């Protein structure tokens, strides 16, 4: 049991985590969990948000020290006290949030990651070696490009290449395909799978996409609320069985069926152009019409101008040119216009974009109407009782888990913050709804509830613009699908007639 001793000289090795228990104060994040990853296998780790997946892999990587339990690397017990120990043993992790430095080039990022960066870097020699390394790799990245200039897909490839460049032989991937198109995801996972089959690598992948588990993984371990809920060979399981194991007996909100007729044009964009923070054109003269009673989905890999488009609609960013009309009237994202046209917004990262974290749940729920009756008298005297009563009603109706209506909203979990925003935005009548990645990072129960609410708003006659990076969500909800690439709408189809391969190709810009 010597730290730094490298188990097998080359090739894949296995990792076993036995009887892992992790306590954070009173909270039991892991309860006697077992994870056995065989050498040379592709292992999937499934579970809802907060099920303990991240905690488990962070214990393996030495970020956390498990309260109890043992970790076996290649059948040898190891005490991993920090990530450097894990790296020395050949373990590597690709995080959900990129750990590349955006302002640096790909080559700088790769060299920097090494433990033995020379005091003075000989760039011509390093680049020759990097090119020789890339020649052996299944995917390519532009070495001299700045990371901030390459696509999310290329960044993810970079992250994986970085681990391979560092000669890691056990890779942990945390939701590696969340920023990739389905085709890119298949490409990257397929190539990693080839390396696994050749015995060069063992992979443990955290995911919630059953499609990828079914296509690429050999075995699966499922966690639920910090406990081991199931494990087995993927070949012997179905997505349904895995989903049931993940969520247990919890009841999910049933989504209402699609009903009603499409009506008048409600939200019209004409040649809208917007810049990003660096001053480059992010939204390139896009035009779109959303009618009453339909959901128009905007698909696309993150970073193709969707965020800027939503910010323009939300009033967080000024459009450079173009015109937006709501129900025929010019729209400049003023509060008065939003109220008059019953416009609702579910922006991405709701805690940042739709809430004031330090203010109470009740205050946050009242934002839209706080200076009108019954919340205020004469437009300035606030009636706290009305805030509380309205909040209590909505907290019950939208199943928001909060201790009191006075709790600061930043103390709530991501799903409950989104429920509170949902209660505010969809609590009254809605004629136009703009939603951006409304379910990002939320658990099944919250996702089902949000999907049901969006569908119900549509059925009541709202025009819904749904921007999402999750193609499955768009296919499920939208009536029409538009693909956004490099700030332009490059493809449009009725969702029922959309061809997934064609959509994926347009998302990747082909």
């Amino acid at each position: 049991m010597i730290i730094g001793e490298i188990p097998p000289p080359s090739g894949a090795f296995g990792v076993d985590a036995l009887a892992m228990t992790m306590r954070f104060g009173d909270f039991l994040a892991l309860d006697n969990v077992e994870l056995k990853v065989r050498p040379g296998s592709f292992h999937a780790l499934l579970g809802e948000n907060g099920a303990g997946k991240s905690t488990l892999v962070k214990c393996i990587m030495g970020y956390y020290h498990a309260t109890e339990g043992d970790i076996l690397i290649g059948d040898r017990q190891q005490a991993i006290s920090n990530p450097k120990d894990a790296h020395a043993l050949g373990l590597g992790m690709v995080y959900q949030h990129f750990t590349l430095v955006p302002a640096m080039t790909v080559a700088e990022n790769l060299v920097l990651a090494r433990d033995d960066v020379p005091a003075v870097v000989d760039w011509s020699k390093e680049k020759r070696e990097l090119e020789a390394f890339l020649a052996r790799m299944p995917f390519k990245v532009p070495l001299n490009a700045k990371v901030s200039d390459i696509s999310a897909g290329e960044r993810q490839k970079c992250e994986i290449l970085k681990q391979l460049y560092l000669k890691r032989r056990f890779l942990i991937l945390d939701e590696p395909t969340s920023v990739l198109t389905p085709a890119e995801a298949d490409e990257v996972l397929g190539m990693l799978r080839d390396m696994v089959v050749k015995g060069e690598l063992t992979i443990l992948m955290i995911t919630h996409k059953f499609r990828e588990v079914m296509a690429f993984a050999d075995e699966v371990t499922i966690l639920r609320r910090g406990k081991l809920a199931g494990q087995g060979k993927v070949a012997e399981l179905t997505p349904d069985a895995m989903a049931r194991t993940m969520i247990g007996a919890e009841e999910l909100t049933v989504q209402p069926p699609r009903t009603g007729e499409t009506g008048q044009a409600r939200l019209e964009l004409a040649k809208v152009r917007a810049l990003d923070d660096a001053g480059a054109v992010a939204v390139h003269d896009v035009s779109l019409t959303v009618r009453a009673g339909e959901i128009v989905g905007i698909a696309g890999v993150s970073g193709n101008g969707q965020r800027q488009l939503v910010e323009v609609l939300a009033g967080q960013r000024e459009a450079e040119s173009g015109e937006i009309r709501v129900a025929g009237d010019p729209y400049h994202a003023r509060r008065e216009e939003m109220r008059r046209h019953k416009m609702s917004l579910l922006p991405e990262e709701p805690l940042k974009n739709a809430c004031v974290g330090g203010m109470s749940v009740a205050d946050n729920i009242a934002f839209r109407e706080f200076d009108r009756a019954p919340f205020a008298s004469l437009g300035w005297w606030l009636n706290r009782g009305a805030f509380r009563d309205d909040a209590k009603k909505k907290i019950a109706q939208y199943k928001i888990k909060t201790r009191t209506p006075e709790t600061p909203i930043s103390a709530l979990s991501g799903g409950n913050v989104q429920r509170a925003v949902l209660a505010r935005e969809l609590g009254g009548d809605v004629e136009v709804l703009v939603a951006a990645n409304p379910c990002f990072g939320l658990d099944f129960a919250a996702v089902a509830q949000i999907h049901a609410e969006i569908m119900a708003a549509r059925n009541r006659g709202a025009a819904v613009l749904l921007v999402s990076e999750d193609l499955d969500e768009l296919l499920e909800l939208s009536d029409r699908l538009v693909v956004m690439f490099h700030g332009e709408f490059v493809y449009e189809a009725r969702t029922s007639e959309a061809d997934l391969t064609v959509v994926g190709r347009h998302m990747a810009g082909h």
Partner: protein
Amino acid sequence: MADGSIGLWTVPLAVFGGAIRVSTPFLFVSLGECITERSGRINLGLEGTLVMGAMSAYGISYLSGSPWLGVLAAGVTGALLGALHAGICSLPRVNDIAVGIALMLFGTGLAFYLGKPLIEPTAPRLPAIDFGWWSDIPQVRAALRINVMFLIGVALAPILYWAFRTTRWGLLIRTAGESSDAARAMGHSVLLIRLRATMVGGFLAGIGGSFLSLFYPGSWNEGLSSGQGITAVALVIFARWDPMLCLWASLAFGGAAALGPALQSVGVTSGYHLFNAAPYILTLAIMIITCSPKRTLTGAPAELSITR
């Protein structure tokens, strides 16, 4: 020309000479701050560091008789103040800007207190190299008396530019400044990197202070710095955190600061105070031209508290 009068040529010549003399402290402080800010932290206390550097350089030079020992003492004092800033900022929930303002006041106050006995005596000054030996015109000779410190500063800018790209330390400082998550994921201590970067920044700012007391103006008094330290911090921002641009910005700033005295020397006395304000007008103009509410600063280290 024989009488040494060169007419209106005095003005550009004096601006040139002034640019070199006045820019040196700007150059050292801004290069130092550039290192600190690239690591993801702002040290506003460099004004205090500058004054402390000036005081300690003068004192040590006076006591030891060697101005270079004074320069070293100023650097060490600066590094210690940098360590103090970084040390306080390492504590949780401490704002680097607030600490910087506190240290600015602390540094100047301490320097005034300790420097009281140094106002009277005369300390040995730093030598200058006479690049104007070929000319008979006194103004040319005066303008070309260039201090070694300026040459060191000019050499330092390209060295830093190179170091940020090709040395391990340069890459680590940039990583800490651009993404502390990335640095931590690689197993580096962000606090340690920033501590060192702030100390080096303080060292250079201290040296910049020594130039004030040991060369130009070349004495110690309480009105020695007219906010050069804090101006240099602003210089870094409009130099876009690039050491080479810091050099050009310092020169432009020094030249602008020399404009008032130069015009006065040829008899243009009206609006003297207005011309003395030239550097600040220049700052405002550049800030207004280069800023936009619609975009973030390009080149700004992502971890800086002003850009986050």
